[in-house]
């Protein structure tokens, strides 16, 4: 019989991710995700419909404020569609960021009592927000059909955009959650940081409003490529923005891996400082 052997000792430096162990805990990941979804909508009248209401109402408000009152350019498509297409991925990003950054603190009671791969916690935030994203995405599809908008051939890039979106949210989330355990400032800063970040991404305005000289710098924000990519695919606001997507992809890969390794490095001390 094969005996599983565990060696416990002080680790130092950068630690690789134990994918096999992570896979063994897939059921925990599943139940944590189910727990957070069920717990969130328990005793709520509208339940999962909140996943539709949230982007829909934000879009309405932005359409009134930025589209009708401030008359911000929307690349020739109705402002409502323009902002909804951006808000669906953006909501996923900001919700995932919020939840995964706090995932270790809210689950401090688990971290200090049981061993399991800690990566499960931010991952489960991504999964539970992923469900909201899927619902939001279906809403988007319905709205697009109603408005007789169809995607063009660039649809083939959509999976890649989703990967970039995922890596950006998860990477930033892991980075912040590892920091937040030790420095609670992260938790307080995050709420308004997410608000500020929204204006640093082309959610309520088009990238074409950013002066040309700054656009390359601006595109270093991975959400620029993702949002403008979405708009190009579904609304044909512009030719597919390859450069921005490449810029954003590079940054998102860097974010993801630095987040992952920073998380692994800090993981050792979570239970001592949580």
């Amino acid at each position, binding site marked *: 019989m094969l*005996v599983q052997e565990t*060696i416990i000792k*002080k680790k130092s430096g950068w630690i690789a991710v134990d994918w096999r162990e992570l896979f063994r805990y897939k059921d925990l990941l*599943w*139940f944590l995700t189910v727990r957070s979804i069920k717990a969130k909508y328990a005793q709520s009248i509208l339940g999962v419909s909140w996943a539709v209401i949230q982007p829909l109402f934000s879009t309405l408000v932005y359409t009134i404020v930025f589209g009708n009152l401030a008359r911000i350019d929307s690349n020739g498509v109705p402002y409502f569609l323009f902002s909804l297409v951006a808000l669906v991925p953006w909501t996923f990003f900001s919700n995932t960021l919020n939840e995964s950054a706090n995932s270790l603190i809210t689950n401090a009671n688990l971290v200090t*009592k049981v061993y399991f791969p800690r990566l499960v916690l931010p991952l489960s935030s991504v999964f539970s927000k992923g469900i909201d994203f899927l619902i939001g995405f279906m809403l988007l599809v319905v709205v697009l059909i109603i408005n007789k908008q169809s995607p063009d051939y660039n649809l083939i890039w959509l999976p890649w955009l989703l990967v970039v979106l995922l890596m950006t949210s998860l990477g930033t989330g892991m980075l912040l959650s590892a920091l937040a355990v*030790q420095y609670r400032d992260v938790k307080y800063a995050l709420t308004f940081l997410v608000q500020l970040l929204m204006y640093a991404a082309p959610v309520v305005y088009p990238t074409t409003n950013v002066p040309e000289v700054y656009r390359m710098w601006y595109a270093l924000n991975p959400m620029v490529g993702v949002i403008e990519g979405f708009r190009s695919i579904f609304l044909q606001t512009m030719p597919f923005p390859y450069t921005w997507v490449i810029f954003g992809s590079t940054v998102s890969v860097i974010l993801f891996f630095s987040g992952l390794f920073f998380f692994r490095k800090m993981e050792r001390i979570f*239970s001592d400082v949580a």
Partner: protein
Amino acid sequence: MRKVIDVNGLGKKYRLGQQDRKHETFAASLWHGLTAPIRNFKRIRNLSSLERESDSVFWALKDVSFNVEQGQVLGIIGHNGAGKSTLLKILSQITEPSEGEVILKGRVASLLEVGTGFHPELSGRDNVYMNGTILGMTKKEIDRKFDEIVDFSGVEKHIDTPVKFYSSGMKVRLGFAVAAHLEPEILIVDEVLAVGDLGFQRKCLSKMGEVAEDGRTILFVSHNIAAVQALCTHGLMLHNGQVVYQGLVSETTRHYLAEFESETGDFLSGIIPRQGLGKVRITSFEVENVNGESLVSTNSGADIFFAFQLTKDGNDAMDEVDIGFSIHSTEDDGLLTILYSSYMGRVFNLTDPITTIQCEIKSLPLPEGKYLVKAQVMQRGDVLDFPTKGVGYLEVIDGDFYGTGMKSTRLTRSKPDFLITGNWKQL
């Protein structure tokens, strides 16, 4: 026998909290306030960096080495702060050691808390799966054992009710039922047995006994010497972060009790500093339970007796003898309470050379901790005897003070000085 746990030179250090300096002038405190973020940053960063040796570094464990063979049930005992919990946390991989290593052979499950991961909004069923997977079971395993778990817990009827509507006892039973069905090769258990009602505790003990007979190895940490004796085959005694004794369970508990008694016995034996006229002396102090058995430690909420043995000089009877005791915190020597017999309207008449005076304390309102008991004998305003160093320690372990199964130390982060109960009502 096969070695399944091999601990070698294990050590763990923690940083102690440092106190902020106090400031005399407004300008100084203003400057102090402005520079606070920088200081905070350094302090918080240092929480995790223990590289620099200094006074604020504290070794919770140092040079701990021992082996456990397959099938042994090892009871780990020691006073508060001996390092038991730290050792457990390292063995269950919750925290990593500062030095040394541990080799574990086999699947490990650790149980440091009952019902970890329970969410109040979810049903009992969901929480069984949640808790089970957190403890390392797979969904398949839980599916297979689900009926057995529910049956063991005795909450069948409410399995689809959100756990927030459960009584605390039901929650504990459900949590324990999950834990009792783990099938690891090495099981690490903290004092979780100290919760739940007595009948259920016994059921769990015997269930865990079965586990041990299957050739599984168990590490069990407890304050409850009786439970350790009943359950364990071997014992390990920790003191100040070091192993002071390892052997068969009977030997280890004997060692523990002997050591503890020597610590309390020191107070009143030999020549000790005393004040007072000396016509009567306190010659022994015991903490006893309802059956008159002397206790090494007691629980919050327990009914206990303080027994003072008084030895009188000469043959004359003495009347109006008033005896009192005070309880002090051992952390800062702060006075917590004083009770003289005269407060309760009692004074004593001593006729025999040796008399024992007893004071019954109902539902001990002290949280977990070690306390110093001092005592003084008075007669009409004169001090007859006052051993200035105190008469003994009172070791209190978390108990069912509220009568609801809730443990006071698990409810709040900071430790209260004393406990109260109250009747809550909605008007």
